């Protein structure tokens, strides 16, 4: 059953220098209990997609398309209706745990305020739930750390606090924006395992945002590869890893050090993402693509293929000899 469905989602920002087209025509769906990965380089629009779902985009943003949740378009929802969904139905784990916690409030207060807001829970009952959430994300000595402030925690612990915060009201969907980027590799693995475990227990859906395909491998059913705000390829994760169709996806996979399939040399993709103010007419990846033809520079490739594996490319990998 589909929980969240984005159709032709586009996001642009009005800036003094012109309009930045950060996200273009992105469609995807997340089923109940499913984990979907959103992968792409820095600046490809991943965070903005997540923010748009909760109506948290900056003031200069304009959206078009629809994001449907329980039959309603979140993009056009009134503020107070949206507020009743935020944290309670859909919660977000923010990208940077160093700045997304309020430095002037105790951890307990920051954790219990969504309980108070959505469930009217206060006092001992609220504290019990806060401690449960802190235990769930393995924050040691939780009881004695309730009155601590964010600066008294390490980066890894803050990341756990941010995750606990998103879990407080047992939401149906979590938008996890790079929940592990701020951490070193061992802690990364712990946190991912933790998320997976919590998800299994509560049948929660997750939109996992990352630029690291290594993280995606074990954790997600479906993967969307984003480039310059467009979907380049989307497929079941296994399928995508085994038979990447888009040169960009293949490039990404080659840049992953610890994946069996990507044997051979570790390579990064040369070049920079395009200017999103005046995007080139053709495929946004063309300037960096090894296989590009004249058509690639001229025409934007549509997203085509079997619904289980789609790609936007004029010369997909499998058609090359």
């Amino acid at each position, binding site marked *: 059953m589909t929980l969240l469905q984005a159709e032709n989602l586009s996001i642009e920002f009005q800036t003094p220098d012109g309009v930045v087209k950060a996200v273009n025509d992105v469609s995807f769906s997340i089923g109940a209990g499913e984990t979907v990965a959103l992968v792409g380089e820095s600046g490809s629009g991943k965070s903005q997609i997540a*923010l748009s779902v*909760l109506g*948290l985009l900056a003031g200069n943003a304009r959206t078009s398309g629809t994001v449907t949740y329980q039959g309603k378009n979140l993009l056009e929802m009134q*503020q*107070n209706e*949206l*507020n*009743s*969904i*935020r*944290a*309670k139905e859909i*919660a*977000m784990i*923010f990208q*940077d745990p160093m*700045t*997304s*916690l*309020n*430095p*002037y*409030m105790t951890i307990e207060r920051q954790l219990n*305020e*969504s309980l108070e*807001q*959505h469930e009217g829970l206060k006092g001992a009952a609220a504290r019990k739930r806060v401690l449960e959430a802190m235990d769930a994300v393995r924050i040691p000595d939780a009881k004695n750390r309730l009155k601590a*402030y964010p*600066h*008294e925690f390490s980066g890894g612990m803050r990341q756990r606090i*941010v995750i606990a*915060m998103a879990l407080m009201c047992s939401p149906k969907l979590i938008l996890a924006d790079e929940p592990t980027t701020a951490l070193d590799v061992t802690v990364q693995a712990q946190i991912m395992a933790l998320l997976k475990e919590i998800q299994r227990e509560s049948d929660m859906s997750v939109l996992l945002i990352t630029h690291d395909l290594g993280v995606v491998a074990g954790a997600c059913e479906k993967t969307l590869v984003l480039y310059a705000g467009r979907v380049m390829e989307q497929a079941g994760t296994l399928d995508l890893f085994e038979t990447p169709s888009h040169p960009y996806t293949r490039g990404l996979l080659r840049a992953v050090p610890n994946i069996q399939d990507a044997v051979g040399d570790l390579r990064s993709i040369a070049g920079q993402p395009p200017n999103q103010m005046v995007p080139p007419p053709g495929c946004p990846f063309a300037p960096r693509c090894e296989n590009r033809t004249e058509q690639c520079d001229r025409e934007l490739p549509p997203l085509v293929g079997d619904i289980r594996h789609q790609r936007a490319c004029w010369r997909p990998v499998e058609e090359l000899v």
Partner: protein
Amino acid sequence: MLKYSLRRSLAVVPTLLSLIIICFFLMRLAPGGPFTSERPLPPAIMANVLERYGLDQPLHIQLWTYIKNIVFHFDFGPSFSQRDYTVNDLIAAGFPVTLTYGFWSAVFVLALGIPLGVVAALRQNSFWDYIMTGFAIFSQIFPNFVLAPLLVLLFTLALGWLPGGGWNGGHWSYIIMPAVALGTSYLANVARITRSSLLEILGAPYIRTARAKGLPERTILIRHALKPTLLPVISYMSPVFVYMITGSVFVDVFFSTGGIGQKFIDAAYTRDYSVILGLAILYSVLTFVLNLLVDLAYAAIDPKVRSGLK
């Protein structure tokens, strides 16, 4: 926090001592003395007067006596120019006056400036935002020495609502105009600082986190944004507080409040060593106390500062 305050207070003692010594010598370095006048006094009388005030003693003895009296008797000595008055008497008469209207002026500045700044930030380019901008410009064009006469012109001479000067034991009608004249330019600054501070805070990632929890905007403003918004306001107000409760010389003189600023001017004209020294010490102590309070306020808001104080 108490330990910190005590430590800070102890640290101020050597500072105060050096201040007393420096002021003491500076004052005597200036040519003339409290008893020099156009028509010189006969030498015998002069000697008498000097003896009475201990000015015939060597300087280091004078200094020692002065410090001893302050430390052991809290006695700042007699006034040299106003017979029968001690420095303690003059401060006791003038300080409560400036403290009173200075306090109300600070209340006026904060109670109006902060909400004005908040509203201007929340409703950018609205009526209230323009009011604030207009007010800021107004206070630049009309500094207190222009504003005060205008206030008197309007409220005393034209409307007859408020007395144009005097103190009358601190009746409220005598406090309003000095407090407003003293505070207006600070009010504009406080509003401006609050506005830009709040705008910056509202763009912070942790405010977005609060929004993601589904909290209403008002809760976010009060619970999440207000404290950090006030930090720069507190920094700004720290020297202003001292200035306000020690009184503006201009406001004291213009409204004849009998406040301490007036006494300072009188003392400077008559080279009243003991009064000037006493007031200088009072100012320093007040500066110290208010700075300490401001630091404590900072610590109360910012846990990082608080853990630094331990």
